[in-house]
């Protein structure tokens, strides 16, 4: 089962201290290993980010041209400092990747799980945008969205395996259930989330989990 990291240990600001612990709390099926090239403001922060990425089972390297994903930390010049991810197409100058159309951006306070999910998504050629939390969320009430159909624990596991890039066959093997049962759960997840593709299900599932998970 994919377990969400606890608490706010994940903010990029405190990467050097507790990233390995936070990352260790995130268990993933070793389905997809992504080659990542990390750029940061200082060597120390680059190393901290590399350690974090490696703790998830990915590979980091010094050459942007070998990488599936280039992870660039924001320059810190503005309040909405962000993390920029770009797929490692060997064209153009990586230093010029900022908030261009092709780059994916995450808020600087994204959790390790969000960064990890984004790394995997970008490696698959998707563009990731995290909604600015303060802009859309607002001060919300518990149970504001309580009328939506809930997923079962099994469906959450299947969704987590889909997020890690698993095919139905891989998920069946991983969860030790039949292919028929996996299909049944996938269809049920699609119906409950009101989606038609796996990518949509993963995106909506992550967003819903973020909104609905509360710490008490």
């Amino acid at each position, binding site marked *: *089962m994919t*377990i*969400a*990291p*606890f*608490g*706010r240990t994940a903010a990029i600001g405190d990467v050097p201290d507790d990233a390995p612990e936070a990352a260790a*709390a995130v268990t993933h099926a070793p389905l997809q290993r992504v080659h990542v090239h990390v750029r940061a403001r200082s060597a120390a922060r680059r190393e901290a980010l590399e350690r974090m990425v490696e703790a998830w089972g990915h590979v980091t390297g010094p050459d942007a041209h070998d990488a599936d994903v280039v992870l660039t930390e924001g320059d810190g010049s503005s*309040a909405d400092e962000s993390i920029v991810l770009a797929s490692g197409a060997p064209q153009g100058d990586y230093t010029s990747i900022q908030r261009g159309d092709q780059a994916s951006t995450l808020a600087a306070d994204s959790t390790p799980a969000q960064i990890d999910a984004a790394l995997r998504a970008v490696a698959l050629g998707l563009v990731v945008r995290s909604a600015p939390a*303060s*802009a*859309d*969320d*607002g*001060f*919300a*009430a*518990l*149970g*504001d969205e*309580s009328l939506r*159909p*809930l*997923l*079962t*624990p*099994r*469906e*959450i596991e299947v969704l987590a395996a889909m997020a890690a890039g698993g095919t139905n066959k891989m998920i069946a093997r991983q969860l030790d259930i039949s292919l028929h049962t996996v299909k049944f759960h996938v269809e049920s997840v699609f119906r409950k989330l009101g989606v038609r593709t796996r990518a949509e299900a993963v995106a909506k599932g992550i967003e819903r*989990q973020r909104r*609905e*998970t*509360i*710490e*008490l």
Partner: protein
Amino acid sequence: MNESEFLAGLSASLTARVAAARSSIAAIRLSDEHHLTGILWRADVVVTSEQSLPRRDEFTVVLEDSKRVGARVAGRDPGTNIAVLRIAEHPSATPWSPATAQPGSIVLALGADGAGDATARLGVVNRVAPEWHSVAGGRIDQRVVLDIRLGRSEEGGPVIDAAGAYLGMSTFGPRRRVLVIPAATLERVVPALLQDGRIARGWLGIALQPVAVPEPLQQAAGQSSGLMVMSIADGGPAAKAGVVAGDIVVALDGTPVRRARGVAARLGADSVGRSADLQVIRAGGVVSLQVTIEARPAG
């Protein structure tokens, strides 16, 4: 009275209300271009919206007549979305008289323009509902929704009624709908924040997500939804009680738990130190666990 006199009179009354409240509106500078609005709560205290106040200790506050003073954050409570700042100088603050919100009442939402003057928005109270709990676990005395749109820098200002009495502080809810943190909540939380810097709240040390209870277990659980434990804080109350990830919480102290709301309501300041009975679904059966509620750690 003819129509034009009535309109002129209404307009004059509104501008008079804004003028009267002007000395109680503060701009909290976030950068050279951005600011947030605050209420001059008393001579040395400014109250604002916690969710929009960056995590810094010191700010510059612009008061009436462009007067700039230094401010220190004295406390913040994400649960009720209230932050308080102490300001160095002591201008004279007009005391407020609290108002009761009613659907349809005309209200003004006031903001700071950043240069020492007020901004104003006119609308009505759209909806009033009883006490509610925020996602962050705070109790808010009343749910008041306004039929008003606010600019980002106007959040945190006072909302006043036609008589000039105040309903509370404006804040953004989901989809930028404007909510009011009621006067009663401010009066309860601000003094506690000034004293302790934070609001004590019961803590179980678990992250929960609502889930559907699998069908074969619904009868044993007596309900069709519960809260699945997604993660556990190391050494926290739940960890000590033997709660494990994957447990589905179905009842707290004998009361069925279907959504998070029910649990948060039982974790007020008075719950700290109390023992709670947690019923969870584990391995196909219902298990009862005793958890001693602790105070939520700072930060």
